[in-house]
């Protein structure tokens, strides 16, 4: 079971990973600084496999793929938001960081979460509630099922719409 770490609306990519740390190909150095300005105690409280939960517009701002990469490298198993900023959402799916859009979730910090990516069903064990995530467009679903765009294109060599 995974614990939820809940954040507010409009968490921008500068808060997920500051621009000064983005110029690197070393994923562990990204993980070392993830969320540090927003939540200085993040690295102490976060356990590999935990879930990040946010309100509206998570990941707004820059196009930096280092933001979802940093979360993935830190061991985040899933990000849930009411809705995501567009580029972050695409980036997350492309690099294989699971993301689910749940407009009506009522998850609180510390809640225990179970989820099934294939169905988009999320169970809040602490509150005994179940949420259904919005469906992905078919092409995104296919990319997610392959584990990201690199694997998808390696296999298909091109985009397939349906």
């Amino acid at each position, binding site marked *: 079971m995974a614990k939820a770490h809940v954040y507010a*609306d*409009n968490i*921008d990519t*500068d*808060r997920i990973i*500051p*621009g*000064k740390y*983005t*110029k*690197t*190909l070393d994923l562990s150095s990204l993980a070392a600084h993830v969320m540090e*300005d927003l939540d200085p105690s993040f690295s102490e409280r976060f356990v590999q496999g935990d879930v990040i939960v946010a309100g*509206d*517009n998570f990941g*707004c*701002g*820059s*196009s*930096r*793929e*280092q933001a979802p*990469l940093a979360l993935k490298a830190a061991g985040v198993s899933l990000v849930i938001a009411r*809705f995501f*900023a*567009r*580029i972050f959402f*695409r*980036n997350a799916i*492309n*690099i294989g960081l699971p993301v689910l859009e749940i407009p009506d979730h009522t998850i609180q910090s510390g809640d225990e979460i179970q989820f099934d990516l294939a169905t988009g069903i999320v169970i809040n064990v602490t509150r005994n509630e179940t949420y259904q995530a919005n469906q992905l*467009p*078919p*092409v995104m679903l296919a990319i997610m099922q392959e584990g*990201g*765009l*690199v694997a998808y*294109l*390696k296999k298909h060599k*091109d*985009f397939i*719409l349906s």
Partner: protein
Amino acid sequence: MKPQTIAEKILSAHAGYPVYAGELCIVPVDGAMATDTTAPLAIKAFEEMGGKKLAAPDKFHLIIDHAAPAPNERIANLHQLMRNFASKQHCALYDIGSGICHQVMVDHHTVKPGDIFMGADSHTPTYGALNAFACGVGSTDLAAVMLTGKIWLKVPHSIQVILHGHHLQPGVSAKDIALEVVKQLTISGATYQSVEYHGELLHHLTLSDRMVLCNMVAEMGAKTGIVSPEGLQLPYLFNPVFADKEAAYTRVLEIDAAALHPKIAIPHSPDNVHDVSAYVGTPITYGFIGTCTNGRLSDLQAAANVLRGRSLAPGVRLVIAPASRQVLLDALQDGTIQTLIAAGAAIINSGCGPCVGTHDGVPGDGEVVISAANRNFQGRMGNPQSKIFLASPATVAASVLTGCISLPK
């Protein structure tokens, strides 16, 4: 055929059949670019995808602008990786000093009206000024464009912004309009959508003005921003793309541009916008003019007009980064740079400069910055203990003269 927005028309022309908001399509891309923040990851993903050769080397551009020249060996090595890739793949590389990616692409006529352009940078919608469909994407999406020459997209719904009026008040510029639109639409109000600009004011807006309007759609969460081509003047012939009269918009925003006063976004969000008059007197110690929003010749001239023959207030510094080599050359030619330097400005290399907090002017703890950039998220300029106000170049210039937020005359 059902009436279409500009975004629907451009995407339909590329898809080869009519497409409408909400539908998915796969379209060929007319051009793509990546910067030193996004290119290294894109190159890595391209190679991991099995990429050997770019689908279209003449349509792919690399720009070293975000941390240029390299402030440390780690970034220097990423720049080397880009240079090596460009020489191996025979694609364009714009090295340090060329300027900010978006300005470089416009200076070199890389993007044209009706094009679809993908940039691995969130302010790529800037090219909507040219009546093009331009989107920001991440590195892996860009790698897919490098490999296939195509991208999958959901056709966006569109928001229509109608700018009324034939002139702006003295001291008001396109930046003040952009800030007003961000305020009204909010930081997430245009998510997944295209912001389409219309109205009689367009006949009076330059290409620079149009770039400011489209640049800041990124601060509304938009997928793209496109200016209707009325009044667009370019040094070559082009086929303008107009929206159909009955095109469907999710929202229509009417703005009386002629009645606007100078605007300012206060810390820590670009949609926290107020009249400058409400913040007059707030002390500042650092002014910054530059970026893909406001680093063009007209912006430097606006600042020079305020600063001519005067000097910065004691204890205040002003950093200026011309948006491109062309802008710098033009500003040298007409004496703008000399005026700015004489007033006390520090001119830095053409590039992103301190905008993204990597180098070239990180603010200190507790410092208050007034900047002509587009984002003022906490920590944006490299120090979460500083505060950033966003305004027009004229407002920044007026403020560095007095040491506190001031109205441009």
